């Protein structure tokens, strides 16, 4: 069985990104191919900011998710509309908006909600963390 995670809760106001991380670690440790992808929507897209600097004595949540993507080859998608309105911008969007910088962290990618629809149709279950 393959799962997709839909994470919608803010990494600062909720524990959605933390709980999702715990779930994905547990799932991958037992079934390495059990996660098809992770889609971040609403304020959860803030997880993909490369310029956020958490205090050194706290978990670096963005890095923890990057490690998952890197070690297990799990794609981390951020909703492009939700991300751009919150200042999470990749190189392409940066050029489109004539900005001088981009803020999207490595191993995250901006995708439309159509990608979420595709994930819904190709995995057994979607689990929302909010």
């Amino acid at each position, binding site marked *: 069985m393959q799962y997709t995670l839909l994470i919608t809760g803010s990494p600062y106001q909720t524990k959605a990104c933390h709980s999702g991380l715990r779930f994905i670690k547990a799932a991958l440790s037992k079934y390495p191919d059990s996660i098809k992808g992770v889609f971040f929507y609403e304020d959860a897209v803030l997880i993909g900011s490369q310029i956020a600097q958490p205090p050194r004595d706290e978990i670096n949540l963005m890095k923890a998710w990057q490690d998952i993507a890197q070690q297990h080859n799990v794609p981390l998608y951020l909703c492009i509309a*939700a991300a751009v309105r919150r200042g999470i911008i990749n190189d392409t969007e940066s050029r489109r908006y004539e900005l001088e910088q981009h803020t999207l962290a490595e191993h995250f990618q901006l995708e439309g909600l159509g990608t979420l629809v595709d994930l819904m149709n190709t995995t057994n279950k979607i689990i929302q963390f909010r």
Partner: protein
Amino acid sequence: MKHTLIHLNTSPYANLACKEGLDLALVLATFEQAVDLCISGAALALLTDNQQPTAEHGKNLHKLLAGLEFYDIENLYIEKANTWLKDSNIWPGAKPLEETEWQALFSQYQQVFRF
């Protein structure tokens, strides 16, 4: 095809949750996925007529309701027990459900997303 229920429970004026939940519903419908809506709690404010939000309040999401049928989103459910919702001052397309029907609603879908 999976049948999806989008459950809105947050005030349309408190944050972007209502808007982004509706956005997801419209995208699902655009991709010809079966999707219904249900509304409870503070999100019920979305249904009341005569809303005139300013730019600071955010987009007028109430206006969007009239366009749902063009996306083939035909079911928007509310719970009948919300007696403060008078038929005359809310969007007429909402379908009120009895308490037992409302409770049974959530197990009728393959996926339920909450905003």
